[in-house]
């Protein structure tokens, strides 16, 4: 188990849980981040936000926020 921000570009994982305040959780779920959802890391480089793909959508997420998403790496 790890956090979303520590995935490397190209890695695939499944969301396990979300932590943080209610506002973050409700914003994230509306964007498609819920437990058991598969997610692909599209870009994780530099100091800026990360770029992931889930539920047919490319989503940019701040690094700090991504640390609140626990994921389980899937073996490829």
């Amino acid at each position, binding site marked *: 188990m790890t956090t979303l921000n520590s995935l490397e570009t190209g890695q695939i994982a499944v969301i396990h849980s979300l932590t943080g305040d*209610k*506002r973050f959780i409700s914003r994230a*779920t*509306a964007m498609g981040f*819920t437990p058991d959802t598969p997610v692909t890391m599209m870009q994780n480089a530099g100091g800026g936000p990360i770029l992931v793909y889930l539920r047919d959508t*490319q989503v940019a997420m701040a690094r700090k*926020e991504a640390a609140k998403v626990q994921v389980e790496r899937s073996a490829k």
Partner: protein
Amino acid sequence: MTVQASSLTDQSGFTIALAGQPNTGKTTVFNQLTGARQHVGNWPGKTVEQKTGSFTHEGTTYRVVDLPGTYSLTANSLEEMISRDFIIDETPDVVVVLVDAAQLERTMYLLAEVLPLPSPVIVALNMMDIAEQEGRSINVATLQEKIGVPIVPMVAAYKEGITTLIETIQDCIKYKELDSSPILPLVGETERNLLAQIKDLIPADTTLSTDWVALKLLEGDSDVLQQIQASLPAERWRALEKILNQHEDGFLAVADARYNWIQQVTRGAVSKSAESAAEVRRGKFDRIATHPIWGIPLAILIMIAAFATAMIIVMPVFPLLSGGGLNVLINATRTALEGAPPWFVSMLADGLIPGVGMGAAFLLFLFAMFLVIGFVEDIGYLARAAFVGDRFMSRLGLHGKSFLPMLTSLGCNVAGVLGSRVVDTWQQRMMTMVMAPIVPCLAVWGVVGFFATIFFGTSAPLVTVALLITLSIWLMFTGLLFKRFIIKDEPVGLLMELPPYHKPNWKTIWRFTWGHTKAFIVRGMTLVAGASMVIWALSYLPHGDIETSILGTLGRFIEPVGAVIGLDWRLMVALLASMASKEASLATLGVLYGLSSGVGTNSLTGLIFGAEAIEHTVIATAIHTSVSPASALAFVFAAFFSVPCLGTIGAIYSESKSWKWTLGATTYYTFAALFAGFLAYQVGSLFL
């Protein structure tokens, strides 16, 4: 089509609400439904824009209300509250929910939230073409059967499906035959029991369905919680609170249930090709546009291209307005009004006409800028710029989407303020709008560069560095002020969808461009015209001469204040002149330091347009001999953190539609400019 005024107070006829997540093509559908019959205002008591319109089909008029684009309906933001309250309180005859066929799963989330609300729903399944390109085929009949509400497949960009949508709306309202009961999003068994318990405790006489209220309570929706707490006896509320406290993860459970429902209804109706859409979308351009290093120069290049385009459009017309053409008009006015009282002639020739003329030149420039911003937003690039710019913007407490407006502001503050429109939430938008004018525009750099060079020569770069450091401190300080006093919620990090690119829809871009330009004509230009008259009056009355004018008297009266800042009354008046245009402050100084020959008039607005009559070198020599270095430094700083120009003030009013914000921001900048001058003078006095 008959032209009829549509308004919110019009109670006859039917009301249709348009809902949908951002980037689902809601604006395009709204434009195609209503055509030119639109009204743009604010939601009552809010600074969020409200668009309404109407259309007539087979003799019946339908009013269309465009709800703010939001991802969900939980009471997280002003926009979400507005959408939700509208559907609940006004119960529109139909709610049309836009869903993106290429991003079906996620965009159906809002649909799952709208379905349990009291109004009948029609789903507009947009972007069918993109879904197809990405190898996704959707069986609309199956999906319709599973969801239980009418579904209209559309490619709104090419007007496909609009007629069917209108007919479906009509059928739904007139014959009620499609008003079937939708299959509501289901929740798991544990939640169902829980919901039943909650339902027993809440009052049944609410106008809302108890199912919905129970669901919202389990979600921990603060707005619904408050309402229920107020309507329940204390004892029952405590019992309810106890249940809710035991299930704090209720929110995730409910959200999860909605996605489960989505998966359930789309299963069998949607087939995907083997190739992952993720790879299809991430083309070569996108890799550069989102690249942590190359993305930044690309964004800057695009903004430079925007300015160049704006300039190319404006250039042939600009000399006509600012120089020759305007002078012809002014002289013609003077000739035509021969014999009229001189103050009246001066008011028109030195006040109103030059002021409005300058505004008109601005307008063209803004028009061109909006065209480019509308274009990059429409094709989907804006989100990429926001993605690469977020690193810098988040340090100021701004959103990534503020990156382009702030960048634009470096060229022209007016464009920056008006460009803040692209930021999604109200709070971040206001913050961007207020911070954009702090960024020095090209004209400010012109004045500051000129002054810094003549006074500090080879040390000018040092002054520039000091200015830039002060600028970053000032921006961060402003960000903190916002956080402390205006933004009530905790700042949230970037969480933004990067929509798929699509071909530009020129109609939508045109509406964006023209809508913004028109708003600036109506509100901004009125303010510019009024303010240039006020400045004229201050610099002309009572004797028709700037030295003895109200402004001159005022300048001398506040000289003790100016002395602390290191600015004599002439420099103070020059700062005020920079409100009309930044370049004007130099011309004003020229006149005030006794170089008035060559300028036809002594009133301030006259000076601005006679600016070219005085050689800059002449001003340089004159000022250099009579201003101390410390005072010059104070002036450089005060001009850099300038009093905003009238165009900017007009733009703030045009965007915020609020006098409070306009006056508040203007006062803030003015104070900042004087304070920066004060600091520079104090520090300068020690060293220079």
